[in-house]
């Protein structure tokens, strides 16, 4: 009993729990998570893709914590506590990042609204032109000839 406990402790301490010991769903989480964490000392690579010693250590930590049953959020928090938000390739939605997350969609909204107004304006434009012309025509022809204005009312 005691020996097995010591073995377990050694197992957890030395980080023998590597990615190879994870089961199917855990391995999928490991893949996903290591892909979403930045190797801090590399030129823009995730810890999954890097050969740097630190990336290797962090991979071990992720694997070990997954094996210990910690959630993705807990593992991310563990690393953020130590390295800051910089370690996350997937910045959480918060005050510092609202513009990042909402900006593109706000722009899309603005774009669609602008397109819609253009379409509206252009669709109405010729009609308005026609009306204007008719009004001008009416003026030119002289105010005496009132009935010519009447169709306008029907129109609008």
């Amino acid at each position, binding site marked *: 009993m005691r020996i097995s406990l010591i073995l377990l402790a050694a197992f957890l301490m030395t*980080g023998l729990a590597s990615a190879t010991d994870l089961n199917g769903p855990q391995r999928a989480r490991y893949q996903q998570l290591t892909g979403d964490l930045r190797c801090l000392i590399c030129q823009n690579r995730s810890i999954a893709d890097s050969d740097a010693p630190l990336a290797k250590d962090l991979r071990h930590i992720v694997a070990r914590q997954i094996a210990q049953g910690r959630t993705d959020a807990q593992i991310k928090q563990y690393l953020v506590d*130590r390295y*800051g938000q910089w370690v996350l390739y997937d910045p959480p939605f918060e005050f510092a990042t609202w513009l990042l997350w909402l900006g593109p969609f706000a722009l899309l909204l603005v774009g669609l609204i602008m397109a819609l107004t253009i379409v509206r304006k252009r669709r109405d434009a010729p009609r308005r032109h026609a009306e204007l012309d008719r009004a001008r025509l009416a003026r030119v022809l002289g105010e005496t000839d009132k009935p010519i204005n009447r169709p306008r009312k029907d129109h609008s």
Partner: protein
Amino acid sequence: MRWRVVVPAVVVAGLVVLLGYGLTRQPSILPSALINKPAPAFNLPTLDAADKRVGSDVLKGHVTLVNVWASWCVACREENDLVTEISQRTGVPVLGINYKDKRGDAKRWLARFGNPFAVVAFDRSGQVGIDWGVAAVPESFVVDRHGMIRYKVVGAITRKEMNKVLIPKLKQLQQAS
């Protein structure tokens, strides 16, 4: 609606200002996530003797400079003399954390380049380094008398940084009660 044609020029002006600011900073240097937070707890064997241990309690009661180093790290060699100088000029003890090293190599290194450290903790696995948010050695932390991290230097300490920042900071923290 003529304002619309001005928007692109304004956007680009903003962009140029942003990028101009971007040029003034060093993207690869990271501030620590631990500034103004308590120094992470640790309990490690000392470099001198595997059976002796050194823990977080050594940080309590006085200002400390914590220097994370390794014998395989070239930049550590450059800053070693400056670390000694800081310790001598301020009287602040330096706690060394020997990061992912071999005992023999580390001891030989100290014998050869000089030992500025009051005590060296031996972090073979690098776990304490990770707890301290160390990305690459050397890194140095200024810890105040309450065990709070107040400042961090990434990479080798330069003479300029020592004179301009580190020594004044250490002295100021020493005076603060």
